[in-house]
């Protein structure tokens, strides 16, 4: 059996439930700053570090209260080595209700890019 939620017949998120781009960016900046401030790139640590950061960002964004948005948080940590890197994304969604927020952080040894996508679930 599947659990099915009754239709709420609400087509768009209520104003209090809209995807809060500015606040989410602030959360991401804060989490990355606190976790990565003076760290060096170390292969084994970064495996767990990237998972930690993405879980923490996800929990904090959930706490903001967008109950009807599905969230995808992607965190990429790389070593600074003089190389060039490009990260891009494209989405097929409903422009009125869905949105994203992105932030980046860099120190002498590593850089970190994180993106949060929020998709409204009817």
């Amino acid at each position, binding site marked *: 059996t599947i659990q099915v939620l*009754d239709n709420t017949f609400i087509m768009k998120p209520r104003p209090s439930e809209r995807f809060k781009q500015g606040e989410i960016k602030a959360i991401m900046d804060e989490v990355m700053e606190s976790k990565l401030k003076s760290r060096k790139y170390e292969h084994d640590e970064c495996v767990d570090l990237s998972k930690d950061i993405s879980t923490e960002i996800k929990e904090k964004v959930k706490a903001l209260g967008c109950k009807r948005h599905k969230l995808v948080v992607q965190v*990429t940590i*790389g*070593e600074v080595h003089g190389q060039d*890197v*490009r990260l891009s*994304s*494209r*989405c097929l969604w409903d422009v009125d209700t869905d949105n994203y927020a992105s932030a980046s952080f860099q120190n002498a040894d590593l850089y970190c890019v994180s993106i949060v996508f929020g998709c409204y*679930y009817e």
Partner: protein
Amino acid sequence: DRTPRTHFIMDDLQSSEESAFVAEDVNNIIKDSMDGCLQQASYQAIKVSQWTSNVIEQCLKRLISLNKPFKYIVTCVIMQRNGAGLHSASSCFWDNTSDGSCTVRWENKTLYCITTVYGLAI
């Protein structure tokens, strides 16, 4: 009474097959798109933005032709090979029965490309 109620329904096998995220199909789509766009490419900074756009556009076109009731998010990272390390993690808040993601890594002598597709059921 506007509060949404939950109720249980019998598992409908056919409808869940048609509207489930099939990782294998998506995996093939991503691989083909990357092969098609980056086959002979040698890393060039000016061309990278074009390449990422091409890979993503190809992926999205084929995903749309699958005709499934999904919203898609496609991200693509292209990095020059010069010995630097890279970690990527993602954390998602969604419905495990209907949503899914697929990541494919591709490389040649001068560059790495990592493409991820997230599919969220409508």
